[in-house]
């Protein structure tokens, strides 16, 4: 590939932007979508060929949030080798922070008409708002919390885990245990987060009706732009010198440590950033879906995110976005047409991708696959089998 930096003597930032063909395509699509989708939905009347129906807005918003979540997983898994099976927890925490704001916005329009307490608290006979609900009537505070809570949790969790060098599968299992513990906790009614039912029946956000097409358009555009921003941030991280260390950690952690790098600090940084992104994704997800409940903490949900990344192609960032769209579109399609088939498909996808497409869809496209420095496995399954055969004697 031509080295544009050499050719046009560009600044490093523009350089890594222009070198990144997939990223440019992604950003272009996101930008175009941000402009065209609201126009299609608001300007063109129903029935017109250019009309974008409201249900498409809902789906797109959902996919964009999932894509952001997948991006955050790819950032740590694809570039630092941390396979988190608990990223759904950060997503859900961000979602709960936003959900709490939206609950407070309901005000006295709830079923019980209490000006302060959300319906479920009145139902549980609570007399006053628990302390941790204070401040959530301010939008900015809720947004801050949607980033801060997942970030702090990831920081503490990561600090403990990385400092004691819990790596690989062990880390995956304890992240899964973390989200499982949170799942159990949020199911409890006395946690004060609506228990089993979670938070729902939202009315409006910042005074705008959540059901109106305009608000939905704004939310979709916000999701697209946030995805673009997070993509750029992630890309920036991975292209920086810090990113090089991260990739080195992914490929040979001990060697990096012996070279004198504090591996745990690098990991901790990228893990926390990733968790914050997941939190933002959750915060954008909840107003568009209209509900947040403990089901989002389910370990199965977090593992599903990993398969999005794997399908798209880990270690490419835009591949994660692509994977999230492909798998979730397939899910929408199959659960609508033949619901029984969906789990067969998803299960088969897990197996097929790990066996035959270790670099995902992106890796299978020659124009992208060759150019990318993804994880070192060969791209097609015949090579894979050959290398495995060659290694048969070597594993001990």
């Amino acid at each position, binding site marked *: 590939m031509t080295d544009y930096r050499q050719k046009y003597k560009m600044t490093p930032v523009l350089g890594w932007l222009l070198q990144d063909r997939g990223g440019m395509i992604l950003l272009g699509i996101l930008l175009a979508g941000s402009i065209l989708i609201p126009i299609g939905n608001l300007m063109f009347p129903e029935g017109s060929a250019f009309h974008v129906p409201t249900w498409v807005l809902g789906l797109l918003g959902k996919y964009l949030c999932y894509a952001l979540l997948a991006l955050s997983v790819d950032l740590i898994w694809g570039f630092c080798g941390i396979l988190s099976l608990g990223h759904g927890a950060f997503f859900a925490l961000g979602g709960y922070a936003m959900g709490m704001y939206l609950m407070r916005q309901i005000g006295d329009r709830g079923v019980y008409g209490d000006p302060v307490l959300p319906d479920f608290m009145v139902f549980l006979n609570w007399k006053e708002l628990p302390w941790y609900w204070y401040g959530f009537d301010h939008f900015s505070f809720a947004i801050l919390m949607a980033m801060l809570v997942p970030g702090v949790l990831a920081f503490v969790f990561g600090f*403990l885990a990385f400092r004691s060098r*819990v790596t690989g599968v*062990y880390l*995956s299992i304890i992240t899964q245990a973390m989200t499982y513990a949170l799942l*159990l906790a949020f199911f409890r009614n006395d946690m004060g987060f609506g228990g089993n039912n979670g938070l729902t029946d939202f009315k409006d956000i910042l005074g705008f009706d959540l059901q109106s097409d305009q608000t939905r358009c704004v939310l979709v555009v916000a999701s697209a732009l946030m995805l673009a921003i997070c993509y750029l941030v992630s890309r920036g991280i991975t292209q920086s010198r810090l990113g090089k260390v991260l990739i080195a950690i992914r490929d040979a952690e001990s060697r990096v440590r012996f070279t004198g790098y504090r591996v745990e600090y690098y990991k901790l940084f990228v893990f926390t950033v990733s968790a914050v992104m997941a939190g933002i994704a959750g915060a954008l997800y909840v107003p568009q879906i209209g509900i947040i409940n403990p089901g989002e903490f389910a370990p199965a949900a977090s593992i599903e995110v*990993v398969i999005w990344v794997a399908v798209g192609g880990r270690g490419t960032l835009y591949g994660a976005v692509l994977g999230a769209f492909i798998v979730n579109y397939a899910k929408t399609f199959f659960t609508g047409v033949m619901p*029984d088939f969906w789990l067969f498909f998803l299960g088969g996808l897990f197996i097929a991708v790990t*066996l035959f497409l*270790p670099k995902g869809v992106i890796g299978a496209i020659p124009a992208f696959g060759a150019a990318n420095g993804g994880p070192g496995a060969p791209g097609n399954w015949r090579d894979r089998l050959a290398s495995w055969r060659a290694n048969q004697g070597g594993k*001990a």
Partner: protein
Amino acid sequence: MRQDFSPPAPGRMPHHSFRRFFLPLFAIMVLMLVALAPQQASAFSDEQLRQNAEQLNAKSSTKKLDVIEKMAADGDPRVAAILEAMLDGDLYASKADDKVVIGKKQGKVWQHIDVVSGAVTGESGSADLDKIRINNRLRGALRDALATLNLFSPDLAIRRAAVETVMDTRDPAMAPLLQRAIERESNPDLLARMELAKATMALAAGETSQERLDAIDILASQTTPQIRAVLLQFVNAAEAENYDPKVVAAAKDAVASVESRLKMWQTGGDVYRGISLGSVLLLAAVGLAITFGVMGVINMAHGEMIMIGAYTTYAVQQAFLVFWPAGIGWSLAVAVPVAFLVSGGVGVVVERLIIRFLYGRPLETLLATWGLSLFLQQAIRSIFGASNRQVVAPDFMSGAIEFSTGLVLTYNRLWIILFSLIVVGGIAAVLRYTAFGLQMRAVTQNRRMAGSVGIRTGYVDALTFGLGSGIAGIAGVALSQIDNVSPNLGQGYIIDSFMVVVFGGVGNLWGTVLGAFSLGIVNKFLEPVAGAVLAKIFVLVALILFIQKRPKGLFALKGRAVEA
């Protein structure tokens, strides 16, 4: 159970609580009667019985109550038939001669049955009979009286139940009757129980300090929540009414000693429940200890191997119902090897088709086996449907051992504890003493060397994975007895299983055993304090912290997985 003898505040009296208020009154009356009347013979003469029965037709129900008490206190077996008829509304006064008879409808006419002899003395239409009316007060008194009369039943079980009733009501009016029952009782167990009942009554009714002290002495040696309640109640009464300080002190000592022994039993119960949970965890985890612990394969479909075992149990049971319904008791025993073969077979196929391509890549293995678990769940759901399937417990697994201290050991849990130990012992033996176990250990320790001395390492891999999966299938047989057999059965165990294996130390069977039992016990000790869900969360958080501290588990061993 009555807590005190004082009448409830007016207006608050619950409508069933007439016994609280009235029984003490009868008690006093009967006591007076007993005190005044010359000592009665142990049974009524015919004449006395008839006289008493005639009095049941009294106008006022208070009078009727007196008579019922008097008759019951005698213990004559014939009284039971009369009182039973009265309770059922079959006791009549004949209008012709004003005699009390038991009426029995025979076609269109009513037979008159003599209350003393039990012979049919005549018959008439219903117009000639006046039913002896009873109200709720009388019904209650009749039931109590009948219960007490059962003390003299020839059937041991009925006598035993009657003694328990007396213990529960602790009605002092029953004291003389109980004394008579004690004199007649021959069964030593029941006699001891009766003496205890007598002591509880003596405590409530005792007049002198010595009587009370004697009663406390007997009660203090007991270890049941019931006796604790009796003693506590007495302590409260004693303090309120300024009994002899010696009595109060003795009662308090007795409460403390009963309490401390009960606490020990409580702790023992927690340990037992913890071991029971631990055995379930152990069964779920022990297969994983082989696939993950020995081979280093992160098998997220492990729970589904358990589920397949449970469904195999169900399928075997259905097959028995069709082909050999009489032998249904054998279905579980047959299911054990079948489940081992089915799950093990699935395991071998999975190893050959998927897992062998992923050795050395644990994260990919994790994802692929997770996909496999989704696949298997949906497959089972398509075959058997999404709803729970019923697996019937064989006779030897139903029922329970109950201790008077409140501890209940159900047979199915006991069997599962035993079964889990047998399974672990079996695996240890296979690993230690069989050629396959030797090859497996050889391949684990040094694959290339094992290969060069002629071990077919690929086959050993497949069989090892099959063994781990087969054991998961056996676990499924056991878990089908205590859990819902549904396609989601396995998911509930997967995280716990990994926790147990990681906690115990990867590649170490005894670590897994210890890990399972200690997690189970810790969980059950936390439960009364924190509640079931919080206890589980605490254990999970503690485990996460523990893994940070000792990433390789309690007993770290070297194996293929450790370096991966």
